[in-house]
């Protein structure tokens, strides 16, 4: 069965971004080990499940990254992966998408997502998209959380786990030190 994996940059105070989504706290520490993880997780997947905010940020960056001489080399490789992978954006307001291999789902239909999990294919990743993480978590549809825990307290920002309705028991799959202060915590849920 295909997994839905939420892979998130995370802080000690539970934030997934600063208030302006600038992510300086990630860019400043990103290293080769983290790049390796990112390549592996994207290679293990064939679909991204995104909320509007993350979709728009990605759409404004990734289609142009490979052609921009200022783009870091790691991002050039990632750009090919992200541009070609299937992207589903959950949105009631976006009317059409021009980014390669993107489609709009107007709402989160648990039955549709369960059917997708049962069909053949690779994992589906939720990246950023806190509101999508929260909704899928409350529907019991997330199978794994990969939290890239950064050595920082932001103080203000967007909490990843707002409005989680019930306790979620987790099983630790892996804890990995990337060597730059960032620790990857991989957890499995009981799932549905």
């Amino acid at each position: 069965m295909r997994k839905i994996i939420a892979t998130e940059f995370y802080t000690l105070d539970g934030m997934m971004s600063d208030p302006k989504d600038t992510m300086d706290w990630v860019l400043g520490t990103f290293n080769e080990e983290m790049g390796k993880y990112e390549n592996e997780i994207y290679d293990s997947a064939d679909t991204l499940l995104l909320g509007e905010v993350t979709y728009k940020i990605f759409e404004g960056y990734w289609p142009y990254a490979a052609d921009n001489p200022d783009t870091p080399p790691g991002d050039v490789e990632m750009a090919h992966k992200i541009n070609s992978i299937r992207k589903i954006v959950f949105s009631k307001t976006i009317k059409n998408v021009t980014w390669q291999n993107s489609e709009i789902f107007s709402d989160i239909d648990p039955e549709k997502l369960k059917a997708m999990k049962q069909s053949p294919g690779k994992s589906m990743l939720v990246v950023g998209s806190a509101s999508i993480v929260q909704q899928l978590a409350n529907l019991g549809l997330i199978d794994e959380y990969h939290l890239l825990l950064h050595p920082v307290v932001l103080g203000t920002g967007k909490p990843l786990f707002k409005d989680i309705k019930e306790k979620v028991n987790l099983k630790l799959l892996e804890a990995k030190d990337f060597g730059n202060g960032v620790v990857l915590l991989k957890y499995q849920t009981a799932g549905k």
Partner: protein
Amino acid sequence: MTVDGFFAGPHGEIDWFKVIKKDGEWDKYTHEQSRSGGTLMFGHTTYEMMKGYWPTPDALKNDPYMAEVVNNSPKIVFSKTLKRVEEGPHWKNIMLFHEIKPEEIIKMKEREGGDITILGSGTIVQQLANLGLIDEYGLVVVPIMLGAGKSLFKDVKETNLKLLEARAFKNGIVVLRYQPVLK
């Protein structure tokens, strides 16, 4: 601390600690940590919880080693409402302060003796963090999300930290130790 950053449930519940399964390596680690001979520091709520358990026959039977360590360790309590602290045969060596005075904390740090360890006590952690008086955070990340509770870093200002140690145990606990970095 839970994965979603809570050190207690919304009403101070710590029943979720029971998801921590027994593990020889983990027990060894917690006992090693308690050997320092240092001082324990609490806010009112955690103090009452500790007092309600460690001097009791249950604790003396289930974990006599830890009960003795907690009993013998010098204990500092911050409370505006507690008038005095009551000692007993299994609950000694307690000092009560009605407010956090940075100069007093700095003096405590300069004195001889082991380290000062704050357990639980979110509001004390938050106040001392914002005064720049915390030297190390030892976070025991428990494999659970509570959904609601008391956030450890509530109202704590932006802080960069240095990871000192990341260690995983077979029962799913991850211990993370950090040192705040001055800006």
